């Protein structure tokens, strides 16, 4: 233990160099900006800035990228709260309560809580990364197809929590999302499905246009139509921003929720192939399950912002664990980071700790500092961000639509993505008119391929025997939690 403390202390001494700290500050600022732009994910933020690090000292370059990683995940929550447009897929769950809070004039409180929860999530995961990286990596490596199946089914059960008043409508939305995810090449055998002999649908629908369409474009259509219907010479709805910051007692009340969500985020982040989106959904569902007033979730409760934000930022440290200890990239961001490490002459894996341990511990310290910098930038920016809500809808609407177009196009330089976004925007508008929730579509769309792949791989391993799921303790545990969690949600819906 003394050795570990000594190594961490030396890491802090190494990272406290002007160039490294400046790199972290620049990285976090860029990450927040890029993460807040719809269509640009934290993966893209890291990828865009990687070439800049080639000429830098390894520690400076990697510090910059870690700053971008942290800032990018947090940045996604800003637009999710203010304009119902998640900047990154990791912030989708933040929309559920963040946007209603902004509509009630509590944008500042929502942004503050998102920031504090993100900071806590990032710090908890960084500390776990320092203390238990090798042990956690071993557990994560034991995850095979049946365990993934259990985890993803548990993730899908979140649909029950975000279905609103009528569960059946949430389930229909979820099935629609699953159907959308089946378009394109079959993830297991590569057979084209529903492509109608065209090449443009072979790779399926991209996630970003789907989420922008369902959340952002549909909201713009809705607001535009509502505004137009009310009166032609309308006065924009004046949403007062009542308070910018949250009190210490509110932070204390959410303490357990943030800690639980941070642990969930770190653990899910460790598992390769998951990521911030799934972690945020699971943490949201758990926060709702544990709450004394679960029926209020989705109407703008602060715990509904704290849980996903703590969890998605906690995946940053979690995702670094298999990457640094085993050389396995757990998600797209760490895949890009591995490339950046290798260009700098650092080969992630078990030998990294032995051969260049001082750099690893300096980077751990850098991750902690990046979270502190993110907190500082967030607090400085909250006043500015909250002003967006004061812009009249008639002016904000075309600006958001323009960002929706560019964000969808930027994913793959394809007009098909823009058309998909637009079509789903109109679908989302009618869904909202008829009380169908949009969130289950996106949840199912993300988890659908994972569920299908893990299910079919498991059954291939067992030669078609479904007992493989019941013979696996981790899978059984996930399935039990899923049924209990879904049962409680259904009971509460029925009771209310």
């Amino acid at each position, binding site marked *: 233990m003394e050795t570990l403390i000594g190594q961490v202390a030396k890491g802090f001494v190494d990272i406290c160099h002007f160039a490294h700290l400046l790199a972290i500050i620049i990285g976090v600022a860029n990450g927040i900006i890029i993460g807040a732009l719809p269509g640009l994910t934290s993966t893209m933020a890291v990828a865009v800035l990687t070439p800049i690090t080639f000429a830098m000292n390894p520690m400076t370059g990697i510090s910059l990228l870690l700053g971008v990683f942290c800032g990018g995940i947090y940045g996604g929550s800003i637009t999710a709260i203010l304009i119902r447009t998640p900047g990154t897929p990791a912030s989708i769950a933040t929309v559920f309560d963040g946007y209603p809070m902004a509509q009630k004039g509590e944008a500042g409180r929502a942004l503050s809580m998102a920031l504090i929860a993100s900071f806590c999530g990032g710090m908890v995961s960084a500390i776990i990364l320092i203390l238990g990286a090798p042990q956690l990596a071993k557990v994560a490596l034991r995850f095979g197809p049946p365990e993934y199946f259990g985890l993803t089914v548990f993730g899908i059960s979140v649909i029950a929590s975000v279905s609103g008043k009528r569960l059946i409508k949430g389930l229909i939305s979820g099935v629609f999302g699953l159907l959308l995810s089946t378009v394109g090449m079959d993830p297991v055998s590569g057979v084209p499905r529903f492509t109608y002999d065209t090449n443009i649908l072979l790779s399926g629908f991209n996630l970003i246009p789907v989420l922008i369409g369902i959340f952002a474009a549909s909201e713009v259509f809705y607001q535009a139509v509502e505004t137009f219907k009310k009166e032609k010479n309308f006065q924009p709805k004046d949403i007062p921003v009542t308070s910018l910051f949250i009190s210490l007692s509110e932070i204390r009340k959410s303490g357990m929720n943030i800690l639980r969500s941070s642990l969930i985020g770190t653990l899910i982040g460790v598992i390769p192939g998951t990521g911030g989106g799934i972690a945020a959904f699971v943490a949201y569902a758990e926060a709702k399950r544990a709450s004394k007033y679960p029926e209020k979730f989705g109407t703008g409760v602060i715990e509904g912002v704290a849980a996903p934000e703590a969890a998605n930022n906690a995946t940053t440290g979690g995702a670094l664990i298999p990457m640094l200890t085993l050389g396995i990239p757990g998600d797209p961001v760490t895949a890009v980071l591995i490339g950046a490490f290798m260009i700098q002459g650092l080969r992630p894996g078990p030998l990294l700790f032995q051969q260049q341990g001082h750099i690893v511990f300096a980077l751990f310290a850098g991750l902690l500092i990046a979270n502190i910098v993110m907190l500082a930038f967030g607090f400085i920016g909250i006043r500015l961000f909250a002003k967006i809500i004061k812009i009249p809808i008639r002016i904000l609407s075309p600006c958001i639509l323009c960002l929706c177009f560019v964000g969808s196009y930027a994913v793959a330089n394809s007009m098909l993505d823009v058309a998909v976004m*637009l079509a789903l925007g109109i679908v989302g508008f009618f869904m909202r*008119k008829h009380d169908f929730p949009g969130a289950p579509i996106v949840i199912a769309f993300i988890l659908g391929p994972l569920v299908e792949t893990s299910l079919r791989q498991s059954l291939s391993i067992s030669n078609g025997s479904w007992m493989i799921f019941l013979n696996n303790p981790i899978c059984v545990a996930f399935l039990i939690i899923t049924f209990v969690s879904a049962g409680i949600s259904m009971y509460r819906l029925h009771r209310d």
Partner: protein
Amino acid sequence: MKSNFIISVLLFALGLFVYVSSYDIAVLAVVDRSGIINSRFFPRLCAILLIIFSAIMALEDYLEGRKRGKESKGNVPSNNGIIYPLGGVSLLCIFYLIMYYPLGHIISTVIFMTIFLYFMSCRSYYILLILPVLLSVSIYLLFRTFLGVPLPEGILGF
């Protein structure tokens, strides 16, 4: 509710269509050793779930309608007055979609935003003239110059 019943019928039809279409999906027996769990399995499962859920929704609405009687008519979401604004906004977006590539990002965005703002009853000449130009140029510079994300150049050629 009549609108919910129509939606249920449409979803039911979509489920049937997906199920029938799944017969066109090829099956690779070498990869899918487990038999029924092949490339068709998941779309079919989704189609069956959609059929079941839409039937349940129709049944729920029927039972609720019977229970509430005439009261239920008051809960029908009104579609009155949405055709003109939604049609206008959708047409503008389709125009933007069609013109985005040939005209390029800057010109198409300026035209789209100016018309959209006017359509939304914005009559301030400062906003109508300055905001579209400012926004389209700043987005172009941010994405293309700083982030290296190519946006359509169109007829301007830059």
